């Protein structure tokens, strides 16, 4: 990783799923009628054009197709949407173009089509390497299919990552260590390893409230996190972010734009953006409900429902919140310029004394390994 210019990225949100997973609180919707993909593609193109009108013609470092389940898109739909991005902004030849995909056999068949449409990196939602656990997580694929999808993806795309969810009910550090080693043996050069989080408004939240879902307590969660770091370090894939691991140089450029607090356009239903325009940094988001978003875009050219200009304090908070998640930490000078305030030296010294953060020669403040375990508390201390 080099360079501190976070760059400009485009996020595209495909809001449909074949089924809703019980832990997921993303903006995803299940439709029992076929989705009119051509019409949605047209609306994406319209919103892209409108957004580009505001930002001007920017150099795009990364495009990310997230969801929902973007691998439910026809390759042609993907092609139309990517073409629209390229028409309105400058997409560098080496730009990262990622797509999230489910590792089911049906979707794997479309991989070549996506590659042809321009996708050069895929992120597979594998989530677990155990059929029972996959059922518990509400996933529609099995382990066999996942392995097959990983193989096809490796053969099709230059870059590949996959996700796992751990700290599942009853999961011991030993069991997780075995699963993680198995995953590492199949991995390319990037892995996202998330501890299961019970999100408000999900079926898991209801189960949890009813006492029918037990997740590891903070001590057990800390042990699992420690095991994860140990194994990934040894495998040469250290955490470059709280939950993301890569071989040096293989980090997800798109997500780095978020964490380095760069700019990104959010296109599609329920997509969020951060755009630096002449009057400040705008926080944008669009209508969440797909059909309402579609109607809005068709009527007025964009689906925006939130377009706020952030205060300096808000910008500072967001930069801390995102930047300290990275092993590289935040550039103190940039933080000061953005937020209009300095980090409290006494607070930093205190956190340094407790071994939670450290200062680097390059003028960064970053969380230590110990600091990662309690990062939210560290951020709250620094932001206060």
């Amino acid at each position: 990783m080099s360079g501190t210019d976070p760059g400009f990225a485009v996020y595209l949100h495909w809001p449909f799923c074949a089924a809703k997973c019980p832990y997921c609180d993303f903006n995803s919707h299940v439709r029992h009628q076929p989705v009119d993909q051509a019409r949605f593609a047209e609306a994406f193109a319209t919103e892209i054009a409108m957004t580009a009108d505001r930002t001007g013609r920017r150099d795009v470092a990364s495009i990310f197709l997230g969801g929902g389940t973007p691998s439910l898109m026809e390759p042609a739909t993907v092609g139309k949407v990517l073409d629209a991005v390229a028409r309105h902004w400058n997409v560098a030849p080496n730009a990262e173009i990622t797509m999230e995909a489910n590792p089911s056999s049906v979707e794997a068949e479309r991989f070549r089509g996506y590659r042809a449409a321009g996708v050069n990196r895929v992120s597979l939602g594998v989530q677990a390497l155990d059929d029972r656990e996959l059922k518990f997580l509400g996933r529609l694929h099995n382990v066999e299919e996942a392995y097959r999808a990983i193989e096809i993806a490796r053969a099709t795309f230059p870059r590949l990552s996959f996700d796992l969810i751990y700290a599942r009910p009853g999961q011991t550090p030993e069991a997780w260590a075995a699963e993680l080693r198995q995953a590492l043996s199949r991995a390319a050069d990037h892995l996202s390893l998330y501890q299961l989080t019970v999100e408000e408004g999900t079926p898991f939240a209801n189960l949890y409230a009813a006492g029918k879902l037990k997740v590891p307590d903070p001590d057990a969660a800390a042990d699992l996190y420690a095991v994860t770091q140990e194994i990934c370090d040894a495998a040469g894939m250290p955490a470059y972010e709280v939950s993301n691991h890569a071989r040096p140089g293989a980090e997800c450029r798109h997500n780095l734009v978020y964490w380095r607090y760069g700019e990104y356009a959010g296109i599609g239903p329920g997509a969020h953006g951060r755009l630096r325009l002449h009057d400040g940094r705008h926080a944008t988001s669009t209508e969440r409900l797909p059909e309402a978003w579609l109607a809005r875009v068709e009527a007025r050219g964009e689906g925006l429902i939130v377009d706020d200009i952030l205060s300096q304090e808000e910008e500072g908070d967001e930069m801390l919140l995102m930047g300290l998640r990275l092993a590289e930490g935040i550039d103190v000078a940039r933080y000061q310029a953005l937020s209009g305030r300095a980090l409290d030296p006494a607070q930093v010294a205190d956190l340094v004394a407790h071994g939670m953060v450290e200062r680097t020669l390059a003028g960064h403040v970053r969380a230590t390994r110990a600091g990662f375990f309690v990062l939210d508390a560290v951020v709250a201390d620094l932001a206060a």
Partner: protein
Amino acid sequence: MTASPQENIRNFAIIAHIDHGKSTLADRLIQLCGAVTDREMKDQILDSMDIERERGITIKAQTVRLNYKARDGKTYVLNLIDTPGHVDFAYEVNRSLAACEGSLLVVDASQGVEAQTLANVYQALDNNHEIVPVLNKVDLPAAEPEKVKQQIEDVIGLDASNAVMISAKTGLGVPDVLEAIVTRLPPPKGDRAAPLKALLVDSWYDAYLGVVVLVRIVDGVLKKGMRVRMMGTGAAHDVDKVGVFTPKLVDFPELGPGELGFLTGSIKEVADTRVGDTITDDRKPAAEPLPGFRAAQPVVFCGLFPVDAADFEELRAAIGKLRLNDASFTYEMETSAALGFGFRCGFLGLLHLEIIQERLSREFDLDLIATAPSVIYRIKLTNGEEIELHNPADMPDPVKITEIAEPWLRATILTPDDYLGSILKLCQDRRGVQVDLSYVGNRAMVTYDLPLNEVVFDFYDRLKSVSKGYASFDYHLTEYRAGDLVKMQILVNGDPVDALSMLVHRSQADRRGRAMCEKLKDLIPQHMFQIPVQAAIGGRIIARETIRALRKDVLAKCYGGDVTRKRKLLEKQKEGKKRMRQFGKVEIPQEAFIAALKMDD
């Protein structure tokens, strides 16, 4: 309107335990006499403060003048005086009762007589009241009117054979109450020709009228335009307005003997009016004031500090404003090493303390930290001096102390037999000395002498919990007694937190110290390091707990779509940190101070 013939006036109060239906009966009486239209009627019409309505308590005395056409064909003026019912306001209750000739004793026909009722009935009897027993809620299946009548006779010694049976809720029997007031209560006495002598029943601040003084005319006539003198304070005031409440405020040219009403005039602050004072004609003063006047004495003290130190001036203004309307609480500035600038405030009791705190936060939108409630200790020093200690932080060096005395009280507790054992244990644990124990049917009546120090702590909460809410409790202060009292300090991460220090009896120190440390352990959030919480007397640690270091606190996922939500969470966290106090390296939330002192061990 003019003054009414004295023989057609009836002044009465309603005595009842909380929830036995006092406010509902008052509402019915007001409705039956047509004093308010149905449109104006709302529940608990006499409780004007939100706190009064919500908690079902009365803090300020109120009166309402009703015109009632009795069965004998004559129209009577009935003055209902609604009194505070809580022990904290015992003196105010006493003065309200002194303004009447009789009382309705309202007892829930299924619950029976409670301790609070008892105390107030005795006060009414002390004021020579004629008492009409009224059994409420007789329509409920659990009602046992005969048993309760027997209880009234046994416990209070009142003839309950002609008790009025009612349901204030449905209105059943309420007309009989009105008739009983007219036929069974005596009219007021008083000499119209004598110099003015009026009892100051209560007073409050009204934004439009200034200080409104509730008065009962004993002798003479109070007229608009006259100059009156307060015989206790000596201050003289010109009377601007005289009138009554119906419950709306209505101007009268004058009020004669036996009447209850109000006056307004050139009075700046409620503090200039003392409940129980005698008001007389400045030009033709009465020879003697009415008996029974005494100044309000705060008995419980605590420090009030703004959570955000920047709000200190706001707190000062708010306390000043509240004091305008409540002369019974006192305040003086205080500084705490931990909490900064605040006020040491004195209250009539714990309920009074809670009410003031609640009004400050509610009416003035202030976030407050309240320190441990403390009583006034009398300390004898080796140099022969005697001092009053209002604040444990000010305690002199123990080597200079020869004796510490603390206030004691006498408590009456009425409880169903089932809970007697736990209640006796509670009283014993709190250094109580049993004075008496007797039975009334299946209910026990226990009298205990207890140190106030133990009662302000959490006695009332404990009593409610061990008796499942069935025991009732009342007390009056008796005397100071010397005791083996020591100052207990709480240390968080090795630093003493002065706001949590307290005087305790040596025999209670271990228990309280342990309880406090255990409580704080749960109230202080985990930090990135381990925090010892200790209780100490002098240099000796008597209890210790450890708050373990935070091990894991980090969001698993945070991408572009999450930033706004996470930022809002962070803003809340920052807001929360503002509500915390920094002690050395440890942040203690405001709630911890309040909750630490409300124990349920």
